């Protein structure tokens, strides 16, 4: 019989998970921004939202992360590594688009050279997603062959039941099963049916758009300039994106001692690709926006067989000039025969 996690048992779950050494994390609103943050009790969660402002990405790939500490002595250089913080974590209330976003980046951080900063966190984190029953005008998971109740990247998928009393539990991975085994006695058997997932209309035909992107003739189409002419070149779309993974490596300190860090970086910035000689392969904003779209829907899928977009819609939702992936792909759709 299906199991239900009742909302009033959530505090007991948190307590149970914490007592076995987990940090419990979920959507929290603080200083007028919602993001995945550690909680002590269930009342801190803000679950009744379409999705948090900041994506889940930072839990695995923080905005800034120290990787090395250096100290330079007369005839030696001491390099000390920073390891990612170890410790089990349970992310409760992740959105399916966020969970799939993380899974999309796994092959990138793992091909040939494994980025342990990513994988140590991945291995120690259980993602408990809640299927969306609400969506807004910017949600577009269904256009990416995903859905408000996709299980990609989730270890557990919860489906809300009527009246907000709790969630129907669907175990996806062994990691999720283990995490929920520890709270098995807090679950109830039930025959209640879940609230149907949110209706997210399909915004564009991805396959057709990808065909257009793959055609080399379209690379220099006037379309790119026209679609991005109002882009102001900030990085908010890339920084809010659950799948954008680009980063910079920066030293802080002097030539005697300091810290080397990995910081988020963005293909929106002109400096991102600028050679020291001054030559810049992507010297215009339209070339940079084209790169972002091409990378997400042409290059990355060609390499890893995954679309580099989970349809969360944050890029469009937050864009200061109301641009975004949806508009671009919709406009491409209009160019199709």
């Amino acid at each position, binding site marked *: 019989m299906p199991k239900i996690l009742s909302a009033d048992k959530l505090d007991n779950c948190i307590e149970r998970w914490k007592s076995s050494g987990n940090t419990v994390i979920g959507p929290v609103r603080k200083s007028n*921004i919602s993001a995945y943050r550690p909680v002590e009790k269930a009342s801190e969660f803000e679950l009744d939202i379409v999705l948090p402002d900041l994506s889940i990405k930072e839990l695995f790939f923080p*905005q*800034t992360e120290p990787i090395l500490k250096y100290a330079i002595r007369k005839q030696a250089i001491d390099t000390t590594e920073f390891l990612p913080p170890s410790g089990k974590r349970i992310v409760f209330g992740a959105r399916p688009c966020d969970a799939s976003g993380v899974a999309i980046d796994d092959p990138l951080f793992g091909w040939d050279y494994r980025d342990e900063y990513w994988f140590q966190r991945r291995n120690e984190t259980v993602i408990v997603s809640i299927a969306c029953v609400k969506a807004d*005008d*910017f949600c577009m998971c269904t256009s990416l062959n995903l859905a408000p109740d996709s299980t990609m990247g989730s270890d557990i998928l919860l489906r809300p039941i009527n009246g907000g009393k709790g969630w129907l539990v669907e175990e996806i991975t062994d990691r999720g099963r283990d995490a929920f085994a520890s709270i098995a006695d807090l679950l109830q058997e039930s025959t209640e049916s879940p609230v149907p997932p949110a209706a997210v209309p399909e915004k564009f035909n991805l396959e057709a758009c990808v065909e257009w992107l793959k055609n080399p003739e379209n690379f220099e189409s006037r379309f790119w300039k026209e679609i991005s002419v109002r882009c102001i070149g900030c990085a*908010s779309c890339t920084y809010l994106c659950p799948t954008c993974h680009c980063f910079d490596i920066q030293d802080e300190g002097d030539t005697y001692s300091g810290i080397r860090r990995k*910081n988020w970086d963005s293909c929106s910035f002109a400096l991102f690709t600028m050679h020291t000689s001054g030559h810049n392969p992507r010297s215009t904003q339209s070339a940079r926006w084209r790169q972002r779209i091409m990378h997400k829907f042409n290059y990355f899928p060609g390499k890893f067989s995954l679309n580099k977009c989970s349809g969360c819609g944050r890029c469009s939702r937050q864009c200061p000039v*109301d641009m975004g992936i949806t508009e671009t792909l919709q406009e491409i759709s209009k160019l199709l025969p």
Partner: protein
Amino acid sequence: MSIEVQYRNRAKELLSNGEVKLVVGYTGGTTPERRRPVFISSAEQVDRLVLDDLCIANLSGYLVTESLLSDEKSVAVFLRPEGIRSINILAAENQLNPDQIVIFGFEPAGNTIKALDGTNALEFSEFVVSLSENPSVSDSDPVIEKLEKMSAQERFSFWQDEFSKCIKCYACRQACPMCYCRRCIVDCNQPQWINTSPHTLGNFEWNIIRAFHLAGRCVECGNCDRACPVNIPLRLINRRMAVEARESFDHFAGLSMTQEPVLASFKKDDSETFIL
């Protein structure tokens, strides 16, 4: 005739007779309450222009886009009063030639908007002076009142909290018409003036330096505040700087096209309270 139709007609006329090569205005956005910038370069497209009280963004920043004005042709732009002040500053700082800018001015009037008389920055001189005589700085913003009552320590922790959210996406800079530097100080690495990391220190450095660079230059259009994806109330910092500039130097940013930058000019009667 609504102001929207009136301005569409004018745009059509200017584009048809070649007086301007481009009209920078607003059009409908993703949702009914959104407006987005639009670039109209042919008379047939003027019906895309939308003008109502939801048109808030200051579009003047687009005018200093690299090489837009280098062919000496004119560009028309929809501007609120703050935008007109931005043009004055950009002209005063030699970033554009105001003769190339045709202004479609408008201002909020209750729940709607009304047209402003004039087509170029010079014609708005008196209007801008009248703005300076009635600075709307006293708009009662509850957060401002709260901040003013705080002790320095409390205020510091307030900003520490806010800046801790900064993700260094530089949307504030990119959205700001006054941030036109070809190479921003944060992008200079010889030496590295500002820490690029988005941690508390780096975030403080960035936001404080930016506030100083805007002191006496910010027209409080709110572009930065609206662009910030993590909702840092940047308007509060800039508003405070505007108040300081006014109280210390009787300076109202963007008063005229010949106004000297307040922090780069000296008058004998400047207050020197910071020198003991």
